[in-house]
């Protein structure tokens, strides 16, 4: 069991080290793709196990919970690891055509896989302090990727990204210290029971808010998102695609985990705050995007507005709401990563991502136009694409709790998303190129073209599959939501598994 859980973390680390050792030869990039394939296989294996058993747990070094570090996968964690592996593979293939030899020498592939290891670790850990450590692994790798190459824009964006993320990390760390002081444990399953026994529940709410702020920065929620649009348009397209797809979602995942498993004592307050923060996140994100004229900046602001939908699902805190949040999370990773990849290829063909200076993509490369339409319309929520079902679930959930205004905002933001996507379409694809350049596929070499198109097509196909046959995915999200809302099975899986040795601890937790 422990192997199934640790392989999705272990493989990227090994791949990263191997890629680093081979960074000066051509083999490095193939090691990277091979490692990504192996990770995908491991995460599919884990997914199959979780589907069969509900929860898979493992204790590192056989130290029994709650004393050792626990790895645990429920449905949400397993699907996040799987989607990480899928995105990881797509972007690793894309990187074949984009990452220059100079950046490979500097260790691009190694950093990339360390990033994936950090992301998977954050999804699979069952220990709060361990979550902090994985956040750091992820963070330091992302710092490296963000400024790799060292152009002026990258350094400028990097400063903002690093500064705000470090502050949020310290907030998280201080929260961990306080929660340990109150309960004496850091095992998440153990905390789930122990937190209710704390006398001063007001203090628990304060700590809950600290965690909300810390993860809110990571997830780029209103009003903590300023680092994201300042930095995501500066690095390589592969880097911004994997950041856009995965990094903010780790924050959302951590919010979902903490505010369903541990901080459920004062739902009336914490989730109400989350509800309004989500609504404002959706609005400010989409309005910010309307003001931008850079392909990637528009997409960056849309990450923010879409994050709002996911946290909204959590804030509604009904089975349907959480289910919508989980569905949204999965759908959005695929769509968003794909849009950044398309922006990358489009930018390469047309000579930039500033919408005022490019154009003519539809006329010269109609296939890219068609491929853009799929994730763009999915993002805006057109049926029958995946985004429609995601938005449908969230809006329905907010109507069910009679939050009319919130539902209205959710629908309005969908409409405004169409506006931004239309702007990209009109500027980058429809209008003729201002410099009379014809951005057809012939402008890049064949291998580069296919390395770019393969992941774009693959992710677009996934979007269509989820859109046309949403039933199994919706059922899956429903099961995941049930698990999240009733953490007793999670607690039992972590603590009960080692009942003989830690019977007392398990009893205490109940």
């Amino acid at each position, binding site marked *: 069991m422990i192997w199934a859980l640790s392989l999705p973390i272990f493989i990227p680390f090994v791949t990263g080290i191997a890629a680093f050792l081979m960074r000066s030869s051509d083999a490095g990039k193939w090691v990277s793709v091979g490692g990504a394939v192996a990770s995908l296989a491991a995460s599919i294996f884990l997914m199959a196990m979780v589907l069969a058993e509900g929860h898979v747990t493992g204790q590192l070094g056989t130290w029994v919970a709650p004393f050792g570090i626990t790895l645990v996968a429920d449905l949400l964690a397993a699907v996040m690891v799987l989607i990480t592996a899928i995105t990881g593979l797509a972007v690793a293939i894309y990187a074949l055509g984009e990452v220059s030899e100079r950046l490979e020498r500097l260790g691009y592939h190694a950093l990339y896989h360390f990033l994936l290891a950090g992301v998977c670790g954050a999804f699979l850990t069952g220990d709060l*302090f361990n979550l902090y450590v994985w956040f750091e692994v992820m963070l330091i790798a992302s710092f490296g990727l963000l400024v790799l190459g*060292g152009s002026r824009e990258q*350094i400028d964006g990097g*400063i903002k990204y690093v500064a705000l993320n470090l502050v949020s990390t310290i907030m998280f760390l201080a929260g961990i*210290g*306080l929660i340990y002081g109150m309960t004496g444990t850091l095992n998440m399953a153990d905390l789930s029971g122990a937190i209710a026994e704390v006398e001063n529940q007001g203090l628990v709410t304060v700590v809950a808010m600290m965690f909300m702020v810390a993860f809110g920065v990571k997830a780029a929620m209103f009003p903590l998102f300023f680092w994201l649009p300042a930095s995501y348009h500066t690095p390589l397209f592969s880097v911004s695609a994997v950041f856009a797809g995965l990094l903010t979602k780790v924050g959302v995942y951590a919010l979902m985990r903490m505010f369903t498993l541990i901080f459920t004592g004062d739902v009336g307050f914490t989730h109400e705050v989350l509800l309004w923060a989500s609504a404002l996140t959706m609005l400010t994100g989409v309005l910010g995007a309307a003001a931008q004229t850079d392909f990637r900046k528009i997409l960056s602001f849309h990450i923010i507005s879409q994050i709002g939908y996911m946290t909204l699902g959590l804030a509604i805190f009904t089975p349907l709401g959480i289910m919508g949040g989980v569905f949204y999370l999965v759908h959005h990773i695929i769509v968003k990563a794909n849009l950044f990849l398309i922006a990358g290829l489009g930018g390469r063909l047309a000579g930039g991502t500033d919408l005022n200076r490019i154009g003519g993509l539809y006329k010269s490369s109609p296939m890219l136009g068609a491929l853009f339409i799929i994730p763009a319309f999915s993002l805006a929520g057109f049926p029958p694409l995946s985004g429609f079902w995601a938005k449908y679930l969230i809006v329905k959930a907010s109507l069910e709790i009679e939050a009319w205004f919130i539902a209205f905002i959710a629908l309005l933001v969908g409409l405004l998303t169409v506006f931004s996507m239309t702007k990209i379409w009109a500027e980058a694809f429809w209008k003729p190129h201002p410099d009379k350049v014809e951005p057809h596929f012939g402008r890049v070499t064949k291998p580069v073209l296919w390395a770019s198109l393969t992941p774009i097509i693959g992710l677009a196909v996934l979007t269509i599959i989820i859109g046309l046959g949403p039933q199994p995915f919706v059922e899956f999200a429903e099961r995941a939501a049930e698990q999240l809302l009733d953490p007793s099975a999670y607690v039992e899986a972590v603590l009960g598994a080692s009942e003989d040795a830690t019977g007392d601890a398990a009893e205490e937790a109940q």
Partner: protein
Amino acid sequence: MEPVLAIVVGVLMTASVYLMLSGNMLRFLFGLILISNAANLVIFTGGRLTPGAPALIPTGADSPPGEVANALPQALVLTAIVIGFGLLAFALVLVFRAYQSLGTLEADDMRVAEPEEDRK
């Protein structure tokens, strides 16, 4: 002892927030150093200050004799210090590099990555 440490944490926090709001990246960095030490002290105090022996178990025994100090917060703080050191080293190099290539340490002047119409 706990109240004293709590006050120390408060003072460190205040100083670091003041430094971080100044807009100069070097001061921000100093603020970051202070705040990360404040967070470490929070963990340390959260684990209760116990005037005890080190948590060592003598050969042949199952549990340590008498009252011993809580080793876990110390382990946590140690990890946090190591990670914090790495991050600060990176941040320092980044700020230095920013000074070299952007020619400024003022956060307000760092507008290279922003859209052009905002540039003054």
